[in-house]
């Protein structure tokens, strides 16, 4: 009995005021983050007449919006478009960023530093400033309104290159030299030895790139004109302009669009957290 009392007393006294403040802040943050998502889900379960009824739990829940959206061929098309774009851009980024990052980290050649600075400096130019040159370039080459037009600006990124370079610097040279002595050529050394050693960074890069492209709106909106080539975010926004704003449709589409993101987070959250930590530490 006395033991129980004393252990309880200890437990009480170990809750520091700082913790209570932290938990409160985290709770408020959590509410702020979750409310819009709940609202999105709730609106997707309402029919048009209930949209402005702000109850979280709909008075008459319905799945009609989902049936309507999923049977509308355009939505599936946009979903596939987004998937194709995000997957191709992710693969391309993982490949090229790590190849260039590896070269900059592990080879000594004239002008290496200048190349690195040049790549890094592009990080400081905001996307809004790049859109016009991209557009002019796309139009000159005839890439407007095409998959390639949507994808080309993101096929390789300065951030990814920088991230991978930092990680490859942590790979001991001995590994590469041992491989060189064993007779592997330089490309195989990168592919078979160096790359597997930086998988945490690679998966972080892949996840960020995929999510970034999945939700990309601004550039796809500018470069595409035919509805067939819209990505999901662009397509969804078109629900807002065609007739009146169809909130229930937009929210249904958005709910479905969240799914891949959610799945990625559920399965790969370990890597995401590690990736963020690593990027924070190294970057």
């Amino acid at each position, binding site marked *: 009995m006395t033991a129980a009392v004393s252990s309880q007393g200890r437990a009480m006294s170990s809750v520091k005021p700082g913790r209570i403040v932290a938990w409160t802040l985290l709770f408020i943050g959590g509410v702020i983050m979750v409310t819009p998502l709940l609202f999105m889900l709730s609106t997707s379960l309402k029919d048009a007449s209930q949209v402005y009824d702000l109850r979280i739990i709909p008075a008459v829940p319905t799945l009609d919006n989902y049936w309507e959206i999923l049977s509308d061929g355009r939505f599936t098309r946009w979903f596939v478009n987004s998937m194709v774009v995000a997957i191709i851009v992710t693969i391309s980024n993982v490949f090229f960023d790590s190849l260039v990052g590896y070269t900059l980290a592990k080879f000594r050649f004239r002008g290496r530093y200048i190349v690195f600075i040049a790549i890094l400096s592009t990080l400081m130019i905001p996307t809004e400033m790049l859109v016009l040159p991209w557009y002019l370039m796309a139009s000159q080459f005839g890439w407007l309104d095409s998959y390639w037009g949507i994808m080309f600006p993101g096929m390789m990124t300065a951030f990814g290159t920088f991230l991978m370079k930092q990680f490859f610097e942590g790979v001991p040279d001995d590994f590469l030299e041992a491989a060189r002595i064993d007779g*592997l050529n330089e490309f195989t050394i990168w592919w078979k030895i160096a790359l597997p050693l930086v998988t945490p960074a690679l998966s972080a890069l892949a996840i960020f790139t995929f999510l970034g492209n999945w939700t990309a709106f601004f550039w796809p909106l500018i470069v595409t004109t035919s509805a067939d080539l819209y990505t999901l975010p662009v397509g969804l926004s078109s629900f807002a302009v065609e007739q009146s704003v169809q909130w229930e449709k937009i929210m249904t589409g958005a709910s479905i669009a969240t799914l891949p993101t959610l799945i990625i987070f559920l399965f790969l959250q370990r890597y995401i957290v590690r990736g963020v930590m690593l990027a924070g530490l190294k970057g």
Partner: protein
Amino acid sequence: MATIEISRLVKRYGNTAVVHGIDLAIQDGEFVVLVGPSGCGKSTTLRMIAGLEEISEGQIRIDGRVVNDLQPRDRNIAMVFQNYAIYPHVTVADNIAFGLYRSKLSKSEKRARVEQVAETLGLSQLLERRPSALSGGQRQRVAIGRAMVRDPSAFLFDEPLSNLDAQLRTQMRIEIKRLHHRLGATSVFVTHDQVEAMTMADRIVVMREGRILQVGSPLELYEKPVDVFTARFIGSPTMNLLPASLRDGRAQLSVGGSIQAPSSLATTSDILVGARPQDLSPVDAGSSGLTVSGTVAVLETLGSETLVHIEADGQTIIGSAPGRQIPKIGEPLTLHAPAERLYYFDKATEKALAIQ
């Protein structure tokens, strides 16, 4: 198996030379140890033999063939690295098989070779494990396995034991030595540890500041060091050096006393008299040898013997007493070394003068 000949080898980084034109001929099947303090150019020399560093000047021949411009993979050498450099993402078997990457053997033949090597090194039970599940000694054995599997003409070792704990180091030292006896392959081993050099080498190459100071068998280096550096570097604890000045054919020691100097020393006045701690003992060796007296300051009991540090005229001198004759700290003690066990060096040039 192969000979390795190095002639006038120079390595420069920018304008700084780190290896200054060294010459060395390594016989077929010989176990040569390059030893010296860090920054002496021993690893750089090894890496130039391996082809991992470009040669600034001079020539390296392996089996009579100039290899200066050959890629590492075309030199048919194998190398074992300090941190093992075994790949953490593949199994032990795959790690060893990397050594056969360029071999044209069939898959099953490769597998047989890997198993054979694993057998030799006692790794058979570990073939499917990842390196993270191995101890330091096992990892180093995997690295050696990867080197062995290819049947290279020469083995290069770059401080392979320095990451292991003391006991394991001793064990691996013996294993590598035994392996060398069995395979008879030419081996070049780099270390900063003189005990490793003494115990493993057929011949030791002592290096300092990018130059070779002395080449010889372990006993030659121990008995006939050419200068103060080698004398102090080889042997543990290090050799005692007592300043002395020559007068009338006798060397007057600064710590007191004098000894009969060898006749060949007549030309120099300031010298250093060297005596190894193992040769300095409380047992009287007669009047012709070295005699120093002082107060016992520190005792290091090793069991078979006790190392005795005595303070004499501000200088610490290390001697050894037989196992059971342990002096007490603070006691006065006199140590003797026989005349034929003394070393003489020029104080100014630090070169050996005459070896008894």
